[in-house]
């Protein structure tokens, strides 16, 4: 099967080119017509081509919570958002702590023809934070990361053991498996449902202080440093960093040379706790929307390299769940389909296209120790063609995710994917 995409440009280039994919990989650029004639040809409409985006943090809710999302809806949504690879979180029902579940999910996803699926597995059995899961077997089954995610590893000793064990499971380049953490001290968070500050006090909603995140990041960095001193190859990845202070701690840890990485979510860059003033649980997310000062600091972190990648923490829930009151509603915003347009529209100028693409392609690949995504002959046939010019309205009714509502409904954004190709096959094409 040969696929040729014509009329595309590489980032920051005005030259119109074509790329041909065959057998799941890139065959070459601007090949003579004789070599592409028998396959399919798609007009790229003058769009900008880039490696397909990589998402390190999505909740696809399968197995067990398919009223919220399933592999088909979630991976179709990812492809529509320009993503070719998705790491899904293990907080499903049952928890992804069993190699058989990992294998089943991968097999099922492979048959769908959307984005590639790489499950994250639980670090501990049942994500209970008490006893390590079978990390070796889980890795062999295809799990790429270990995390207890929102269950916040309250037992520091168990997290330390997990980092140590995962750090001994080396890839071919000698890199240990990534352990990612939802860094939040549960006792400090307590019953907080939004950022603690003047807004939470005015609204009478229980606050979650910035110190809950910073204190947990500090603890985990010290655990990591101790393991490194003993020669461990443990790698700690901090999920959805939301506060200026926690970012500062990560910056310092990187100076110390620790094997630590972090991700930042577009919702923490574009929204603040002010959004809660309407008491709409759509804006309830964990960690919570913080202040403009935090958002500004996170943007600085993207620029100076402290932040390794952008992840969306795509966390779909049913409309009925998100229509509950703010104390009762579950946390999460689902917007994998518009993450790139949102980032490009808001920060394309500030960051520059190359940096933004890096944070959504090569950045996450570096976190994982994967090969740097490239568009050269022989590279995997995962690419996206982006329309950087046309403004389009965010229309939740047209979303592929089951969560057909979003904070950005009605906004005009540009940077929408025209075409997403995964393993040489069309995974999404704009209608």
């Amino acid at each position, binding site marked *: 099967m040969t696929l040729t995409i014509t009329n595309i440009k590489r980032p920051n280039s005005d030259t119109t080119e074509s790329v041909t994919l065959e057998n799941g990989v890139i065959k070459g650029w601007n090949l003579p017509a004789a070599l592409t004639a028998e396959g399919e040809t798609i007009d790229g409409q003058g769009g900008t081509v880039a490696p397909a985006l990589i998402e390190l943090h999505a909740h696809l809710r399968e197995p067990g919570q398919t009223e919220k999302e399933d592999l088909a809806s979630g991976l179709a949504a990812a492809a529509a958002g320009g993503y070719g690879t998705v790491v899904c979180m293990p907080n499903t029902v049952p928890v992804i702590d069993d190699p058989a579940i990992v294998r089943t999910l991968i097999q099922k996803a492979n048959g769908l023809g959307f984005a590639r699926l790489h499950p994250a597995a639980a670090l501990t059995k049942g994500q209970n934070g008490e006893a390590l899961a079978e990390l070796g077997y889980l890795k062999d089954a295809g799990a790429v990361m270990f995390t207890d995610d929102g269950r916040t590893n309250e037992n520091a000793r168990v997290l330390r053991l997990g980092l140590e064990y995962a750090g001994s499971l080396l890839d071919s380049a000698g890199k240990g498996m990534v352990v990612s953490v939802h860094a939040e001290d549960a006792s400090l968070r307590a019953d907080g449902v939004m950022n603690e500050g003047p807004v*939470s006090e005015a*609204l*009478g*909603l229980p606050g979650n202080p910035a110190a809950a995140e910073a204190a947990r990041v500090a603890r985990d960095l010290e655990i990591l440093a101790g393991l490194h001193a003993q020669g461990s190859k443990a790698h700690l990845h901090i999920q959805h960093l939301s506060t200026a202070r926690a970012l500062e701690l990560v910056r310092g840890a990187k100076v110390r040379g620790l094997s630590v990485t972090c991700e930042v979510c577009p919702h923490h860059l574009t929204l603040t706790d002010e959004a809660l003033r309407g*008491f709409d649980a759509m804006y309830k997310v964990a960690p919570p929307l913080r202040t403009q000062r935090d958002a500004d600091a996170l943007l600085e972190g993207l620029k100076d390299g402290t932040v390794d990648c952008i992840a969306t923490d795509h966390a779909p829930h049913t409309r*009925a769940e998100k*229509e509950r*009151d703010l*104390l009762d509603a579950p946390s999460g915003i689902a917007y994998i389909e518009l993450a790139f347009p949102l980032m490009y529209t808001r920060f394309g100028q500030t960051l520059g296209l190359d940096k933004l693409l890096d944070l959504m392609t090569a950045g996450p690949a570096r976190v994982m120790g994967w090969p740097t995504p490239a568009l050269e002959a022989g590279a995997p046939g995962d690419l996206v063609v982006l329309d950087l010019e046309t403004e389009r309205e965010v229309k939740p009714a047209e979303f592929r995710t089951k969560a057909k509502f979003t904070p950005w409904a009605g906004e005009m954004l540009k940077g929408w994917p025209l075409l997403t190709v995964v393993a040489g096959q069309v995974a999404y094409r704009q209608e």
Partner: protein
Amino acid sequence: MTSASPRPRHLLDFQDWSAERLTAILDNADTMLQVLDRPVKKVPALQGLTVCNAFFENSTRTRTSFELAARRMSADVLTFAAGSSSVSKGESLRDTVEVLTAYKVDAFVVRHHAAGAAHLVARYSGKPVINAGDGRRAHPTQALLDAHTVRQEFGSLEGKKVAVIGDIRHSRVARSNAELLPKLGAEVVLCGPATLLPADLAALPGVTLTGDPRQAVRGAHAVMALRLQKERMGGGFLGSLQEYADTYQVNEGLLAGAESGAIVLHPGPMNRDLEISGEAADGPRSRILRQVENGQAIRMSVLYHLLVGRD
């Protein structure tokens, strides 16, 4: 009335309410008090209208006060109590509200344990909503009756100082008073132990915080004691109720430092001899029963304003 701001459709909190409109509510409550002094305590203002008391959280007093207020205005009252209803069978707030709305009620009075729930009822029902207490957020008719009680005493709220003492953190009464009284020209001092006094509340205009009750009552025209939920002990906020009472109790000793004509308020129900001494609760400064009377009049006035009042 000639206020430029649009007429608010709901009383959820005081964000959309101008001082003029709030003053009109207080003025109208004086008329309602006269109605309550008549042998026949009933006016036909809300005849043919149905008010739904939707109490997702138990509250005998506030519910009774709203119920009487609506009946005295000749409204029909539908009382919905979550404890013995579809809610206990898992029905969502939205579905409950939509069903009640389909009964053709004309307004909702809402009490709920979650801040913002009254806002959701307004969104889902499309009907006028009076917030009768939502979590820690707001209890606007309580603040209005407090304001009315102070105004009755001193003729105006302009330049008056009101000290609110107790568990500020968990109190919707404190938040609503902190929002309302400065709009009407009064100064509010919030006072309590540091763990129950969120520093971020100092960001509200016209509001100051202090941990020292003697400083709080200095120059105060009204001193309000808040109910201390004994459950707070389990939350680790306090060392002991004894220490709390010794430091923060509103009693004759503390009141000696207030203005000579200062009055004592309490939103009820009281823990006598904990946040307030028996002498202070029953003494000549106490306006606690007056608050209850005013509460009914304020609720009549608010119902009138939202359901039939015209600019």
